[in-house]
C-alpha cells in the first residue's frame, strides 16, 4: 500500500496523546508475565548445568519425585522431536538432550506446591555428567583442535577443511575491490572485537501454563510474539495449534530477547504431567545464563580513501559466535556493514562459529551494531589520518536514492543525507571542546520489516471503535495504532480502544520485531478502517437510497459525494452505529496482509565525552540522536525509542559484556557486574526527528525501534579516540582498556 498521494493534514497522527495502558502501569495494575496466578497453581523450577559442555549420561529424578509437594519432574524425554531443525534448536535450548551445551543449560524441571519445595527438589535430581572440553571464544573455537560444539552442523557451502564449528559462510558485495584499493591514497586494515551483550529487559521471562488431559492448553506469558510461541510449543508438545491458546501478558521489555521460547514449553510439559497449572519464572541469574544474549564478534575491516575523502573500496571479514547453535545473524551483519555508503567496490564476508554459550537471540538490529562499529571506526581513523571532517566524509560517500546498496538492492527515498545535514547544522556539531574531551560521530542503519499482520476494527453501538491486533505492545504501540485508526476514521483518539488479542481471537501475526509494528500493524489498521468505511458508506447509501459510489467519508461522517448525489444531512459514525442492527447487522473492518515496503531507516549520533586520563573513566557530556522516522505517529514514543536505543548502545560501548571464566562459566550473571547504564551515568539524550516519508506506507511511516542502537558503539569509540589521542579496537571500552591505550 503506497504513500497516499494527497498531501495530508494530520489531525491525530503526530500529536502526543495519553497512552491507553498508562494508568494501569503507574498504579501497579498492569499484569506482566509473573503477575498472573491460577487456582491450584504449582511453582516450577529448572535444574541447570554447571558445566559448559558435558554429555548427559543419566538423569535420576526418583528422589525429587518422592519429595512431598512435588507433582511433576520433566526432562528432554517429555518433549516431541520438532518438525524442523531450526525449531529443534529452539527446543534444545529450552531443555538439553544428549549434551549440556553451556553453563546454565536446562537439564530437568520440577513443579511443586511451593517455590521452596520446587527448589529443594532440584537438589535431589541426580545428573550423571561426562564433562567435555569447552570453548567460549571465537578465536579458540576456530582452532583446529577446538572441541566440536555440535556435530554435523558445518555450513554446507563451507570450503573443505573449514572447522566443524563454522555454521554459516556468507558473502555480499559488488565491484572490483582490487581496482578500488589501487585508486585510494590511503588504505588501512584494522581488527575489532565486541563482547556479547544482553538485551537487559528488566522483566525476567515468566509464564503460567495450564494443560488439560483432553489436549487443550492455555499459556500466559511475556513475549514479543505469542503466535510464534504457540507454533513452537504446539510442535514440541505434539498439540494441535488450535488447541493451544496463548495470551501475551504486558511485556516488561524485550528488545529482541523475547522473540523465541525459553521456559514456555517446559511450563506446559510440567502442567501436562502434573495435571495442574504451573507458573515458571526465571531468576535474573537464569536470564543471563540461559536466555539469548547477542553474538560477540571479531572483524577485520579494510577501507581505501582518496585524499579528498572519497571511499574507493571497502571490505569486511566478520566472525560472529552466536552460542552453541547455528546462528544466521552474521548474514545481517554482512549486509548492513556498509549500508550507509555509496560504494563502487564493496565486499562483506562473514562466518558464524559455534561456542559453548547460550543460543543467541535477536537484540535490536541484530548483527548490525558490531559490524557498523568496525566500519565507522575505520572510516573515522581514515578521516583523522587524512585530516578530513568526519561528517563531510560521510556526506560525500552517503548512500542516497539510486545508490546500489552494499547488500544488493537499489535504494529508493532514504533519509541518510538529510539526517547528516541535520547533524551538520545542529549547534552540537560546532560546540567547543576542552582538553581530554572528544566528539564522536557515527551513522547507523537498519532494514526494518513488515510481515504477517491481521487487524480487526469493530464498530460499537455508540459509535466508538475497538481495534483488535495481535502484536504485544512493547513501547506504546496500542497508542499509535489507535491514533492511526482515529485518523483514518476521522474520529477523536479517545473514541478508539486498541487491545492485543490472544492467539484464538485473531488471525496470525508475526512477532513484534524488525521495527515492524507501527509500520505493518499501522498499515493493516488503516486498511481495516477503510474496509469499515466502505461498509458504513454502503449502509448509508441504502438508507439514502443512492449508489454506494455516491457516498463519501469525511471527518467521521458519511456525506453525499456531491450536489448530484442528492441533498442529505451527513450521517455521523455514531448515527450509523446506532442503527446498524436495523440496516444489516454489526459493522466491522478487517484486513490481513503480509506487509512489504517497510523502508530502511538511518540515524546519525553525535556524542561528546571526557576521559579521565588518570583512571580511564569516560563521562558522557552531551548526546544527540538524529533519525529518520518517515512520519512520527506519536513523537514522544519515537523520541523514547531513539533515547532508549542510544543508551543501550552506550552501555555496549562502555561497560556491558559477558565475561566467561576459564571454567566456561559465566562470571557476571547479575545486574551488579553486568553493568547497564544507570540514570547518573547519562546526560540528557537530545533527539532530532526527521520525517522523510516512506513510500511504502500510506502515512509515510518507517519503523524506528532498532536503528538507534547501532551508532553509539562507534560514536563513543570515535569520541574516546579523539579525547585521548589513541584508538581502542575492542568493546567495551572499560577503564582498564582505556588506561592501557593511554599508556600506548
Amino acid at each position, binding site marked *: 500500500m503506497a504513500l497516499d498521494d494527497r498531501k495530508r493534514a494530520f489531525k491525530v497522527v503526530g500529536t502526543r496523546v495519553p497512552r491507553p495502558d498508562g494508568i494501569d502501569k503507574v498504579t501497579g495494575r498492569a499484569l506482566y508475565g509473573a503477575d498472573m496466578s491460577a487456582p491450584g497453581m504449582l511453582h516450577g523450577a529448572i535444574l541447570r548445568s554447571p558445566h559448559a559442555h558435558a554429555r548427559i549420561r543419566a538423569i535420576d529424578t526418583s528422589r525429587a519425585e518422592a519429595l512431598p509437594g512435588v507433582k511433576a519432574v520433566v526432562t528432554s524425554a517429555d518433549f516431541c522431536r520438532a518438525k524442523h531443525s531450526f525449531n529443534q534448536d529452539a527446543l534444545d535450548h529450552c531443555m538439553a538432550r544428549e549434551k549440556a551445551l553451556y553453563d546454565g543449560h536446562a537439564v530437568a524441571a520440577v513443579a511443586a506446591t511451593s517455590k521452596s519445595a520446587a527448589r529443594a527438589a532440584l537438589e535431589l535430581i541426580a545428573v550423571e555428567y561426562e564433562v567435555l572440553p569447552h570453548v567460549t571464544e571465537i578465536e579458540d573455537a576456530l582452532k583446529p583442535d577446538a572441541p566440536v560444539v555440535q556435530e554435523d552442523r558445518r555450513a554446507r557451502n563451507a570450503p573443505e577443511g573449514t572447522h566443524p564449528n563454522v555454521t554459516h559462510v556468507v558473502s555480499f558485495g559488488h565491484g572490483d575491490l582490487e581496482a578500488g584499493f589501487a585508486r585510494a591514497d590511503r588504505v588501512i586494515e584494522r581488527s575489532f572485537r565486541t563482547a556479547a551483550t544482553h538485551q537487559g529487559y528488566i522483566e525476567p521471562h515468566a509464564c503460567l501454563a495450564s494443560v488439560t488431559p483432553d489436549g487443550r492448553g492455555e499459556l500466559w506469558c511475556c513475549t514479543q510474539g505469542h503466535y510464534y510461541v504457540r507454533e513452537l510449543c504446539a510442535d514440541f508438545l505434539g498439540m494441535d495449534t488450535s488447541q493451544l491458546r496463548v495470551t501475551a501478558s504486558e511485556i516488561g521489555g524485550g528488545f529482541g530477547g523475547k522473540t523465541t521460547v525459553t521456559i514456555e514449553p517446559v511450563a506446559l510439559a510440567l502442567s501436562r504431567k502434573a495435571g495442574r497449572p504451573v507458573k515458571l519464572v526465571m531468576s535474573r541469574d537464569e536470564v543471563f545464563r540461559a536466555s539469548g544474549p547477542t553474538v560477540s564478534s571479531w572483524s577485520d575491516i579494510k577501507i581505501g580513501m582518496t585524499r579528498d575523502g572519497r571511499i574507493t573500496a571497502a571490505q569486511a571479514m566478520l566472525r560472529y559466535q552466536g552460542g552453541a547453535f547455528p546462528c544466521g545473524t552474521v548474514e545481517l551483519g554482512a549486509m548492513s556493514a556498509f549500508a550507509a555508503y555509496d560504494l563502487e567496490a564493496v565486499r562483506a564476508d562473514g562466518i558464524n562459529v559455534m561456542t559453548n554459550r547460550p543460543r543467541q537471540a535477536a537484540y535490536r538490529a541484530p548483527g548490525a551494531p558490531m559490524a557498523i562499529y568496525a566500519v565507522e571506526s575505520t572510516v573515522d581513523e581514515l578521516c583523522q589520518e587524512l585530516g578530513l571532517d568526519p561528517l563531510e566524509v560521510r556526506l560525500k560517500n552517503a548512500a542516497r536514492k539510486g545508490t546500489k546498496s552494499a547488500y544488493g538492492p537499489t535504494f529508493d527515498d532514504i533519509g541518510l543525507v538529510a539526517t547528516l545535514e541535520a547533524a551538520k547544522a545542529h549547534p552540537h556539531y560546532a560546540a567547543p571542546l576542552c582538553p581530554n574531551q572528544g566528539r564522536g560521530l557515527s551513522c547507523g542503519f537498519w532494514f526494518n520489516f513488515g510481515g504477517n499482520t491481521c487487524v480487526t476494527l469493530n464498530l460499537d453501538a455508540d459509535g466508538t471503535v475497538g481495534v483488535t491486533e495481535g502484536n504485544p505492545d512493547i513501547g506504546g504501540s496500542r497508542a499509535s495504532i489507535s491514533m492511526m485508526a482515529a485518523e483514518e476514521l476521522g474520529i477523536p483518539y479517545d473514541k478508539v480502544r486498541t487491545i492485543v488479542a490472544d492467539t484464538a481471537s485473531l488471525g496470525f501475526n508475526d512477532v513484534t520485531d524488525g521495527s515492524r509494528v507501527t509500520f505493518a500493524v499501522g498499515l493493516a489498521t488503516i486498511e481495516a478502517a477503510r474496509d469499515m468505511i466502505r461498509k458504513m458508506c454502503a449502509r448509508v447509501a441504502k438508507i439514502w437510497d443512492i449508489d454506494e459510489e455516491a457516498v463519501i467519508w469525511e471527518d467521521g461522517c458519511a456525506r453525499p459525494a456531491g450536489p448530484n448525489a442528492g441533498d442529505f444531512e451527513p450521517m455521523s459514525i455514531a448515527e450509523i452505529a446506532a442503527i446498524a442492527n436495523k440496516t444489516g447487522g454489526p459493522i466491522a473492518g478487517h484486513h490481513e496482509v503480509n506487509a512489504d515496503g517497510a523502508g530502511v531507516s538511518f540515524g546519525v549520533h553525535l556524542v561528546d565525552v571526557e576521559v579521565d586520563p*588518570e583512571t580511564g573513566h569516560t563521562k558522557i557530556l552531551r548526546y544527540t540522536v538524529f533519525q529518520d522516522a518517515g512520519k512520527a505517529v506519536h513523537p514522544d514514543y519515537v523520541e523514547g525509542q531513539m533515547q532508549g536505543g542510544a543508551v543501550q548502545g552506550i552501555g555496549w560501548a562502555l561497560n556491558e559484556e559477558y565475561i566467561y571464566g576459564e571454567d566456561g562459566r559465566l562470571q557476571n550473571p547479575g545486574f551488579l557486574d553486568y*553493568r547497564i547504564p544507570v540514570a*547518573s551515568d547519562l546526560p540528557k539524550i537530545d533527539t532530532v526527528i526527521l520525517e522523510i516519508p516512506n513510500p511504502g506506507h500510506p502515512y509515510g511511516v518507517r519503523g524506528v525501534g532498532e536503528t538507534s542502537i547501532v551508532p553509539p558503539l562507534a560514536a563513543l569509540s570515535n569520541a574516546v579516540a579523539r579525547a585521548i589521542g589513541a584508538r581502542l579496537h575492542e568493546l567495551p571500552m572499560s577503564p582498564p582498556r582505556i*588506561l592501557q591505550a593511554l599508556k600506548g
Partner: protein
Amino acid sequence: MQFAAPRSASEAAALLQAEPGDARVLAGGSDLLVQMKSGALRPDLLVDIKRIPGLDAITAEDGGFRLGAAVPGARLGEHAGVRALWPGVVEAVELIGSTQVQGRATVAGNLCNASPAADAVPALVAADAVARVFGPRGERDCPVSDIPVGPGRNSLAKGEFVASILLPARPKRAADAYLRFIPRTEMDIAVASAGVSLVLDEDGRCTRARIALGAVGPKVLLAEEAAHCLIGTKLEDAALAAMAEACSALASPIDDKRGTVAFRKQVVGVLAKRAAKIAQDRAGGTK
C-alpha cells in the same frame, strides 16, 4: 531455617551461641540476603538485631560518635554532627549500593561482611574507628581493622556480634575523605578505593595521616609508608606523588571481572592522592 528478633544484646548473643548450625546476624541484610539467594549461604538461624534497644541510635561520646549496629547508611548521612566530624566516613557509607540499599545497609554489616572492596571500611580504618563487640562473655573493644581477616571472613568468635562502632573525637584542622573507582557512577563494587584522614598544624603542615586502601588486597590495607610521605608536608605535588607511588607499591590486587592488577595498582594511588587533597581542603589546609 529459624528467624529470631531478640530484644536484648544478651539474648542475641545467647541465640547465636546456642545454635549448633550456621547462625547469622541480620542487620540491613543487603549482603546476607543476597548470599542466601545465591545459595552461597544457608543459615540455620537468622538473628535480627534491629529490635535491640539502643542499637538503632547514633550517640555523642567523648567528642566522637557511637554508631549503633542497626543504623542504616541513610541515617548516618542525615546526621549533621557525624557529617561535620567525619565527612569521609559518611561519604564512604553513602557510596554503598543504591538509595534503596542505603535504607538498609549498616556500617557494622559492611565491616563484618569482610569484603575487601567494602566502601565503609577504608574510611573507618583511616578514622581509627573502634568496634564494640558483644558476646557471650560480655563486651570488648576492637580496632575495626582487626575485624575483617580475609575475603568473607571476620575475627568474631561464636556468639559474638558487633554492637556499635565508635568514631573518635578529633583535633582541630583535621578531616578525612574517601574515594573509590567504579566503571559507572553508581551501583558498582569498588575496583579500588582509598580513605585518607589528616591532621594539620597551624601552618597547614600535615602532622598525622592515616591512609587505608580497599579492593587491592585480601583485606583493607593500612598504607603506613604512604602516610609517612605526607608528614611534615603541605601535600605538595612531590609529596603526593611519593604517597601515590607508595600506595601503588603496597597494593597487591588480583585480576578479576572488575579490574586488572595493573589498573588497580595505578588507580589506587590516584585515588589516595585525590582523597588526600580533599581531606586537606576540608581541614582548612588550602586556605
